[in-house]
């Protein structure tokens, strides 16, 4: 057990009580700080280096084949704490052969960036890994309407996820080979 040591507080000496030496020391410190390297980032020209796990604006992504990953399960809409997400479910267009196993696709997908709190719950809850918080952080607009990201905007921001894994392809393969669960 550590022993408690009570330190006597020494009375201030005369020079300490005038505070002048201390002030001089402080002045020296601030003066030397004047010539140290500046830490300011010249923002619009220089961008900050973002960490790997940075959470920026939530976006929708497509798989490498250019197919929509979102299946309109509405889990993200459900989990979103500030209720920023609004999904209008729709069916998958008939002509898309390779997506026939998917039952639904979002007809409209809106994220209200005036409400979004960048918590990342939507990314966490998404079973399709379709929604990602990417490192875009400065979104701005002149009107409230501009700040509501629609589906087209979300895909434009999100782009394509370079991921070979596509759940519904595997499921289809398994069904064809007859070893589905």
């Amino acid at each position, binding site marked *: 057990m550590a022993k408690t040591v009570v330190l006597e507080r020494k009375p201030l000496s005369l020079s300490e009580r005038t505070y002048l030496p201390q*002030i001089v020391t*402080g*002045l020296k*410190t*601030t*003066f030397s*700080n*004047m*010539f*140290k*390297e*500046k*830490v*300011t980032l*010249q923002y619009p020209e220089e961008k900050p280096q973002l960490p790997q796990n940075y959470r920026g604006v939530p976006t929708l992504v497509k798989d490498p084949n250019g197919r929509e990953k979102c299946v309109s399960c509405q889990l993200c809409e459900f989990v979103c704490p500030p209720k920023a997400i609004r999904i209008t479910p729709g069916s998958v267009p008939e002509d898309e052969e390779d997506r026939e196993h998917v039952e639904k696709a979002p007809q409209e997908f809106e994220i209200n960036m005036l409400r979004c709190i960048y918590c990342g719950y939507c990314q966490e809850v998404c079973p399709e890994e379709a929604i990602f918080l990417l490192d875009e952080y400065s979104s701005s607009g002149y009107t409230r309407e501009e700040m509501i990201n629609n589906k087209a905007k979300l895909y434009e921001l999100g782009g394509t996820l370079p991921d070979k894994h596509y759940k519904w392809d595997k499921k289809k393969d398994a069904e064809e080979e007859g070893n589905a669960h």
Partner: protein
Amino acid sequence: MEFDSEMLQQLGLKALFALLMVSAVMTMAGYSVLAERKVSAWMQGRVGPNRTVLPFVEHIPFIGPFLKGLGIFQPLADGLKFLFKEEIVPGHVNKVYYYMAPLVALVPALTTMTVLPFGEYFDEAGNSSPLILANLEVGILFIFAVSSLGVYGIVLAGWSSNSKYPFLGGIRSSAQMISYELAMGLSLLPIFLWVSVPGSEDSALSLVGIVNSQNDGAWLLIVQPVSALIFLVALFAETNRLPFDMPESETDLVGGFHTEYGSFKFGIFFVAEYAHIVVGSAIFTTIFLGGWHFLPWIADPWPATWIGTLLGIGWFLAKTVCLIFFFIWIRWTIPRFRYDQVMNLGWTKLLPLALVNLIVYVLLVTWLDQPPSVTP
């Protein structure tokens, strides 16, 4: 005595000089705002204002970006911003005094400099006469008298705002001013004792006399360090600079006396504060740092012509600018006192110290019988 043409001409000349000095002090005030921002930024590892630039200057190679980086044009932008912001007058204020207060704060700061000598002028024979708007025999008393009026601006602003924080700021300010004026006056008495020569015709209360006594001799800062220290501390208190910025302490009184002020009226308060600093540094330079004279114990190296005049003024300005830097430097080093600490320092430390200092110098001057220095 009639107003004849010669008198009118002289009046016009004086008015012109006064206008020039006002604009010089205002410009310096504007740029000390910039200096404040820049120096504080450097001390905190930042860069400070470096964006504002005039449209055509930007394209000059090297010089343009350099000036832009220094933020030289920032005061212009600040001034324009103050001018064009919306004037908001809260409904609960006492209108007359609310409008009057910024002016009352600015005028004493600008009036003080009329008795401030800032250089010397040589005629053909090589005789020097000081450059000064009004060479009062009692110049230093005039400065005290006028600067003691400066408190009314703050008190009026605080009272007419009809709101709690400004009111507290006004009350604190009046108490602080009364307390520190005493120490300030007492700290200067040994100076007058030291400078005055028995039997001379010159008045020791004249600022020109004080400056000339430091020509080719020791600065009064070296001869009377305690006086200089007390005067400097009191000057900080009178200009409401940071260790003593009781009237506007942002952290406990929001903004103090100018909480309810905005746009141009706030701008005037702002300029007045910095004009006080500029004039205060100039006064300190005049009294303790030898005014326009060169280093202590070294005679002025410049010739007794108009070149010498210009160099002297430049040297005076350089000292003043160094002091302004010192003001800013102190501000970003020392934290604010508590109100009772301010009162304690003024009444129980500075005042007795000033009295002891006075007594010591009275004895010393009596013992020396004939004070050294002084070329009348």
